Each structure stands twice: as structure tokens, then as C-alpha cells.
């Protein structure tokens, strides 16, 4: 939902970052306002996953230039956990398995960390169980998953649903979903997309990182950005995604070649 008077939640200006000695992001510009759904598309290696990790504060990436304002404050100064508490959420492409750590306990600790930041009271075990059971319905997840270790032995679809469950509990202002559609069959994709649609509101925003058009059949973006060579090359509406579907990424490569010559 595009509203000209909406608050700006995230403002990325000329963002540059590298991993080890390799520059990956070479000047990303992107502004996200409340209520909007953005999709970033691109080939493997275009820098779209790096963008999501840099925004969440992954220690392997070094920002070498540019700025990111999150609700007017410098996001890059904050530790990953502070970003999360302030309402930035990253849904992982490959959710991490953590043997021995109960999913329920993990969800409770993280939910309370976010609630504390919002000035809400912490939930005890019982109150949290009530909340989590209600939110489980958003992703149609079996409560049995709560008793297991975080993501351990979960199928690909179960892991992604667990990510959306976390999103439902953490109530983020900006949710970045990194290839949430990868590895999902069509039913799981519908459930995950249903969850994302359910959680989208005029007050928050969603940034979908995706490879394929099919996610955008079930979640309608307000903006589609095409990324290549560490930059956003083109921005349009959802018709841009359809164009990519039709024409493939070759024309993007040609535009990039022109750009890099210049």
C-alpha cells in the first residue's frame, strides 16, 4: 500500500559493503515507507542476500560506505540484537539449527526482548504459551514443534514456517524475508505467504528478497527492484517482475555491462 504521507521506516543511501576483501554492495539506494511491500529480485550473486545480512548486522560483512537510517536513526551503529529489538526482522534463507535449545524457550526469550523494547511487560511461561498457540495458527504449525530444539530436524518448509512464526511473535516494523520461498512446495508457499500477508499492516513494511516470480503471485508487491552487480538497477511496479519472468535476466546483464563500462 503506497501512501505519500506514510512515515519513512528505512532509508538506504549509497550502501557499500564487502565480505573479506570482496566488495559485494556497490552503492544501494532504497527507501521503504510504512505500509509498503518491496521485492528485490536478481540472480544469484547479485548482492541481494548480502543486503539483507548487512541490514541485520551480520558480523562477516563490513560496511565500507553509505548510510542506513532506520526510523531516522543510524542503523549501522547498532548491534544485531538492538536492531531486532527495535523492530527489524530478518527471515533467514537458511534458518540455523540449534540442538539442545528448546524452540519454545528461544521464542519466549526473543519475544520478551522485543516486548521490553516496546515498553510492554515480559510474558511468563504461561502467558507466552497462550500467545504462541494463537500465533501458531498464522502459519498452521503443529504445537509439537515448540517442544523440539530450534529448527533441529525440521524440513525446509517447517523451518520457513518457524521463521514466519517468529515474525508473528516479534511484530516487526520492517521484515526482510530472504528467499523465504526457496525450497518450498506450493502448499507450504501458500501458508508462508498467507502468514506474511496476514502480518502486513499500514504501520509496517516488508522487503522480500526473491529469485522467482512465483512468490509475487501470492504476495503482491508495491515495488519491484532488480539487483545486479551490487546495485539496484531498475525499480518498477509488479509488472517489472512479470517482465523479468518473460525476458529472463539477460537484459539486466546487458544494462549492467553498460553501467560498468561507464
Amino acid at each position, binding site marked *: 500500500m503506497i501512501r505519500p504521507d506514510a512515515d519513512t521506516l528505512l532509508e538506504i543511501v549509497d550502501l557499500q559493503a564487502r565480505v573479506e576483501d570482496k566488495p559485494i554492495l556497490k552503492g544501494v539506494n532504497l527507501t521503504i515507507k510504512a505500509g509498503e511491500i518491496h521485492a528485490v529480485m536478481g540472480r544469484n550473486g547479485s548482492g541481494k542476500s548480502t543486503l539483507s545480512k548487512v541490514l541485520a548486522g551480520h558480523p562477516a560483512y563490513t560496511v565500507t560506505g553509505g548510510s542506513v537510517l532506520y526510523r531516522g536513526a543510524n542503523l549501522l551503529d547498532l548491534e544485531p*540484537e538492538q536492531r*531486532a529489538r527495535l523492530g527489524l526482522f530478518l527471515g533467514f534463507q537458511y534458518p540455523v539449527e*540449534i540442538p*539442545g535449545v528448546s524452540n519454545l524457550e*528461544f521464542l519466549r*526469550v526473543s519475544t520478551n526482548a522485543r516486548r521490553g523494547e516496546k515498553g510492554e511487560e515480559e510474558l511468563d511461561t504461561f502467558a507466552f504459551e497462550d500467545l504462541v498457540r494463537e500465533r501458531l495458527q498464522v502459519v498452521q504449525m503443529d504445537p509439537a514443534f515448540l517442544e523440539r530444539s530450534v529448527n533441529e530436524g525440521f524440513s525446509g518448509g517447517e523451518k520457513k514456517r518457524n521463521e514466519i512464526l517468529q515474525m508473528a511473535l516479534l511484530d516487526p516494523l520492517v521484515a526482510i524475508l530472504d528467499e523465504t520461498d526457496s525450497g518450498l512446495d506450493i502448499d507450504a508457499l501458500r501458508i508462508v505467504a498467507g502468514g506474511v500477508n496476514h502480518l502486513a499492516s499500514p504501520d509496517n513494511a516488508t522487503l522480500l528478497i526473491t529469485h522467482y516470480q512465483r512468490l509475487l503471485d501470492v504476495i503482491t508487491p508495491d515495488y519491484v527492484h532488480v539487483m545486479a552487480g551490487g546495485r539496484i538497477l531498475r525499480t518498477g511496479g509488479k509488472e517489472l517482475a512479470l517482465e523479468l519472468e518473460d525476458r529472463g535476466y539477460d537484459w539486466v546483464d546487458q544494462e549492467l555491462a553498460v553501467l560498468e563500462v561507464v
Partner: protein
Amino acid sequence: MVAAMSNSASNSAALAASSWVTNFLERLPAPAGELEAVQWRGREALSRQPLPTRRQEDWRFTDLAPLTALTPALAAAGEQGSWPAPAAGAVRLWLDAPGDPLAGQSLPAGLSLLDADEVQQALGHTLAACNCEQHWPVELNQASAPRVLALRVSAVVAPTLELVSQAAGDDVMRPVRVLLLLEEKASLELLQVQLGSGSSLTSLVIEAHLGRESTLRHGLLALGEGPACFFGHLAVEQEPRSLLESVWASHGWALSRFEPRVVQADGEATTSLKALQLADGQQLADTHSRVEFRGPEGQLDQLHKAIADDRGRSVFNGAVKVPRAAQRTNASQLSRNLLLSNQARIDTKPELEIVADDVRCAHGATVSRLQTDELFYLQSRGLSAAVAAGLLKRGFCEEVLRALPAAAAPWRPLQRLLGET
């Protein structure tokens, strides 16, 4: 010149070792009671072979300085600590009770005490079968233990038997000796809680003979603090189709050494060994295990986990012997270690001796820090780096701790091991 110096240094170390043992033996009361003969034997052995030295392969990484800093003497009856009530379905025996630990307690059905003749016959039998009757920590126990808890398990024992012993206070020595004879198809779950504080010494020897198709589930929770030291030795002889599940968790001892020794007398038995040892401060935690298959089709599943932090040091040596007679043995051993500081140290060594040709023996060892990706995942959900690290540590421990007998729960093993109480 250098050689002469190192000679004189090792001479003086040998002298110090023998004087520590001499002084220790002098502090012991005259041999007496049901184990008088064993005490004589142990004392003679100790005076012949004072302390192990680091020139012995088995003791290479084990510095006994924390032990020789102690001046332990046998203590009279102990005092009960402020312990949690036993779990429902558990029968607790306090081994340091004044007089008879069994006074006022009736043993659960399926358990009975061995009489003096039976003890005489059976005591040391399994130690001999495991080739460890002359092992130093065993002789230390034999020299000092005033009594043995000797039990016959003749049926499936429903309640968990819980044995608690505490070496509290300075210069206290607490030797505990247990003998278990499991008859055919009998089954017992045993939880041992060993607590140590002050400059105390705990010495534990457990012998168990597992008859055909019998089951022993053994949990040992060893919690020390300060300069307290712990030596534990578990010798088990398994008949075919018996099952041994042993879980051991320790933390807090200046020096701890645990030695599970298992012999599958004719193979065809199942052995599961799980251990978790934590070493921080200047602590040294050492496990030397040995499993020997003397017949075909035996199974071993062994997991040894350790966390070393600060200047702590963890040692694991896991010997598995598969002679020609042990065809179709299926053994796996995994040593997983977390190294949390630059000054901590982990020494881990699988020692597989496989002669039989038709066997499956897998082993592996990993030493790592906390995984960056796991930490980041938790941080990206709002957990501080410290809370995330704590959660990962707990997860690492849980894999072993959840295998402890349920009766361990009131002791809150995880919180105690991580020093959260």
C-alpha cells in the same frame, strides 16, 4: 649438566610423591572392618607405587598438583547438606550417614544386600576382569574405603536408586565403593550424586556385573568447588544381550578424573557412554574410558562432550579394543568440545585398536568455538551476545544431561553445572 638437573628435579618430584603417599597412609586409621583385607592390600600397593607421573602415557596430561596440595584424612560421618527432596519414584541413600546408610530404609523390591561371604567372593572380580584392579585410583580407594555398598539386583527394580555422598570441608576424604551384581534379566536405574567442597578428596569405585539380558542405567552427577578433587572409576562387565547406559556430568573440581572401563565378556551386549565435563578457572577435567569387546556383535555408542573456558583444561582419552574375536562389532565414538577462551585447552584422543576385520567402528573429534552463525541467528532475534552464548552453551550441555536419570531433575544439573544457582 642439563640432564643432571632434570634428573635431580624428577628425583625430587618422586620423593615428594612418595612422601605425599606416606603421609596420606599415616593419616589413615588401622585397617579394620569388613574391608580390612582390601585395605591392607591397597595400602601395600600405594606404598609400592606412589603417585602416577606424567611420564606414564595414561597420565600424560594429568597434572596431580591439585591432589598433592591436599592433606586428606578419612572423615567420620558427614553432615547432610541442604539437598532437594528426592524425585518421586526415587529411593535415596545417604552414603555418609552415621552408622549404616541403610538404617531405617527398606530396599525396593528386587534389591538385596550381599552377605559377607558373597562380598568376599565378588568384590574385585569385575575390576580384575577389566584389568584395572591395580590401577592407582582403584588402589587409592581400596586403601581407604571403610565399607562397600554391595547389592544384588535380582529383578526389574521400579524405583531409581539414588546414592548421595558429600565431601564437605577441609582435609576430608570421602571414599565410596559400590558393588552391583545384576542377575539375568534384572534391571536397575542408579543415580549417584557426588558433591565436593573445601580441600576435600572424593574417591569413587563402582563395580558392576551385568548378567545376560540385564540393564543398568547409571547416572553420575559430580559437582565440586574450590580445591576439591575427584577420582572416579566405573568397572562394568557385561554378559551378552545386557545393556549399560552410563551418563556422567561434572564441573567445579580443581581436578577430576573419571575412568569408565567396560568389558563385553562375550560380545553381543550394548554399551552407551555419555559424558559432559566442564573446566574453567584453573580446573582440569579428565576422562579416560576403555571399552573392550571380547566376543562378536557388540555395540558401543559413546559421546563425550567438554567445555573449556578461562584457563581450564579438558582431557579425553577413549580407548576401544576390538580383538579378532569381536567380529561384527559396531562402535561409534564422538568427542565434541567447545573451547571458549584462548588460554583454555582441550586434549582429546580416540584410541581404537581394531584387529577384527568385519567391524564398523566410527570415531570423530571436533574442537570449536561457539558458531558465529548460531550466535548471529539468536542475536538477530533480540538476544544479547552474552545471552545467546549462554543459550548455546546450555544447548551443548543438554544433549548429555537429558540422558541422566529423571531422578536427577531435583538437583537441577544444568543450572548447577553452569554455576547458575
